[in-house]
Structures are given as C-alpha cells and as structure tokens.
C-alpha cells in the first residue's frame, strides 16, 4: 500500500520541472503521508481506509507548487529556460483560478430563477393578470443570456450576442402583441431580428478583417 501512496504522490509532482526544491517537497510530502498511514494502521484502520484518508488529507498541491515557483523565481541560479517553464505553469494556475470564478455563474442563474418564480407568484396573485404574467419567465431567459454574455471569455462573447438577440426578440414580440393586440403584423419583429443578426455578423467579420 505504501507503494501506492508513493505512486500517487509522484503523480502529483509529475508535470513540473524536477528541480531540487520540487524533489525535496515531494520527499517531504511522501514522508508525511507514510507517517500518517502507519499511524492510522496502528489505530486500527484497514489498509484501504488508511490509504483514502491519507490521500484526502493531502489538499491543494497546486498551492504548494505555487509557493515553490515563487521561491524559484527569486532564485538567480535558475536558468532562463526553466523560468519560462515556470511562467507557463503559473499561467495554467491563473486559468484554473478564473475557471473557479466562473462557478459563480450557475449560482447567480439558479437564484435568479427561484427569484423569478417568487416574483411570478406575487405579481399574479396580487394583479390576477395570469394571462400575461407568465411573460416574466421569457424575460428571465433574456436575463440568463445576458448573464451568459457577462461571464463569457472575450473571444466567445459574440456567440452570446446571438442568444441575447433571440431571447429579447421573443420577449418583445409577446409584450408588443399583448399590448397592441395586432397579432397579424407583430410577427414582423422576427424578420427585423434576422436583419439585426446578419448586420451583427457583418460587423464581427469587418472587425476581424
């Protein structure tokens, strides 16, 4: 089982340049894991239980590597080439951080929907306009596409513009139709939306050229 722990720990340090500091941290972590494993066995845990508890206790190795990377950066003995390798690692770490940030998006969207349901109930029960209040859900989908646009990385933002155009067109179609009652002509808004979408596509192409 100790072999398995060693294999696991070595895997964690696999993708970074094997400098003295990295190897030392790896040995220290392995020693700590073995100490803990033997201690857990002594306290009556089975091999498997002890193994999983040790693995679960390791925590965020990226954080440790980040600290080491920072120390190496200030170390003048590290050659330029290796520094560059470290830069790519910290880029990856940064990318990870931004990905973590985007977990905010589902939280906002789900709370927005539950809020919409509550608002729908409150407005409907107080005004009794049940035949139009459901439009709030169409509006919520517009909001959702806008949230998607806000959280999208800059190179995919134009795709979210399309979503915004279509959800807001649908919403406007219903709102205008209900207010004016002229269902025979309001569908034209969809033709207008197609024009806007094509104009936006042309704009994107023109920007890239």
């Amino acid at each position, binding site marked *: 089982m100790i072999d398995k722990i060693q294999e696991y720990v070595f895997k964690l340090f696999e993708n970074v340049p094997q400098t003295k500091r990295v190897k030392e941290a790896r040995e220290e972590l392995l020693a700590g894991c073995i100490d803990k494993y033997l201690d857990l066995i002594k306290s009556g845990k089975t091999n498997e239980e002890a193994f999983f508890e040790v693995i679960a*206790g390791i925590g965020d190795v990226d954080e*440790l590597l980040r600290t080491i990377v920072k120390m190496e950066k200030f170390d003048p003995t590290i050659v330029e080439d290796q520094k560059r390798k470290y830069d790519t690692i910290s880029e990856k770490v940064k990318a990870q951080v931004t990905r973590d940030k985007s977990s905010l998006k589902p939280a906002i969207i789900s709370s927005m929907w539950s809020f919409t349901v509550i608002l729908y109930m409150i407005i409907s029960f107080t005004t009794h306009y049940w035949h139009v209040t459901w439009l709030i859900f169409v509006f919520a989908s517009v909001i959702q596409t806008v949230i998607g646009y806000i959280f999208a990385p800059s190179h995919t933002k134009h795709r979210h513009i399309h979503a915004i155009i279509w959800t807001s067109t649908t919403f406007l179609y219903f709102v205008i139709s209900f207010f004016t009652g002229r269902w025979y002509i309001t569908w034209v808004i969809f033709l207008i939306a197609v024009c806007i979408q094509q104009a936006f596509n042309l704009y994107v192409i023109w920007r890239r050229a």
Partner: protein
Amino acid sequence: MYIVLPYSLYKGIMEGIVLSITSDLIRGNTDMIILAHLAKKESYGYEINKFIQLKSKNRYELKEATLYGTFRRLEEAGYVTYYWGDETTGARRRYYRITKEGRRAFEKYLSEWNEAVSIIYALIDENEEEVKND
C-alpha cells in the same frame, strides 16, 4: 413553498459563512501555530499536524500541502531552518528548527494577537459596556 425555499437558502448560506469564519481565522494564523510548536521543540510535518489535531480535539487539521507551503514561507523569511532525518523507510523527514528571528517574530505575533483579541472582545462584549455605564 416559495417562502420556505429562500429561507432555507439563506440559512444554509449563513451557516456556511459562520463555519468559514472559524477555519479562515485559524488558517490565517497557521504561521503562528507552527512557530508556537517549534518554539518548544524541533519537529517535522506529521508530528506538528498530529499535535494540532490532538490539541484542537480533532476539530482542526491542516492539509499536508498547506503545512509544507507554510514551512517554505517560514524558511524564506528566515524564521526556521531544516535538516533531513535519516529514515530508511521510503522517504526522509524534513525536521525544522526555529531561529532567533523566528522566536522574535513569534513573540511579536503573540502580542499582536492578544491585542487584537482584547480589542475584539471589547467591541463585542455587551457586559463590559454596562459596567462602564454604572
């Protein structure tokens, strides 16, 4: 139903905040906790974590990676030095020893901590205010 849902959501969030205050506060003082242990004796990673676990009655345990990251920072600051043990089973332990600067830093840390705690107590303790009013 639409009253219960937001309430349970709110409650869950508040419990999360309270829990994270405790662990954030402890994590923010990892340096002090480790220096306190090293001020008593030379030690190594697992022994320190075991000490933290025992002293806190299993309410707190550091992740290994956090612990070793802290050692690196203390080393960089000149607060600790290390030497390798001579274990023959797989991997050697890295033993840490507190330096003079480390001791000084710990004492400063401790007095700042006591100061902060007394201020916080003064600010949140209602009884103290009543005493003053009497």
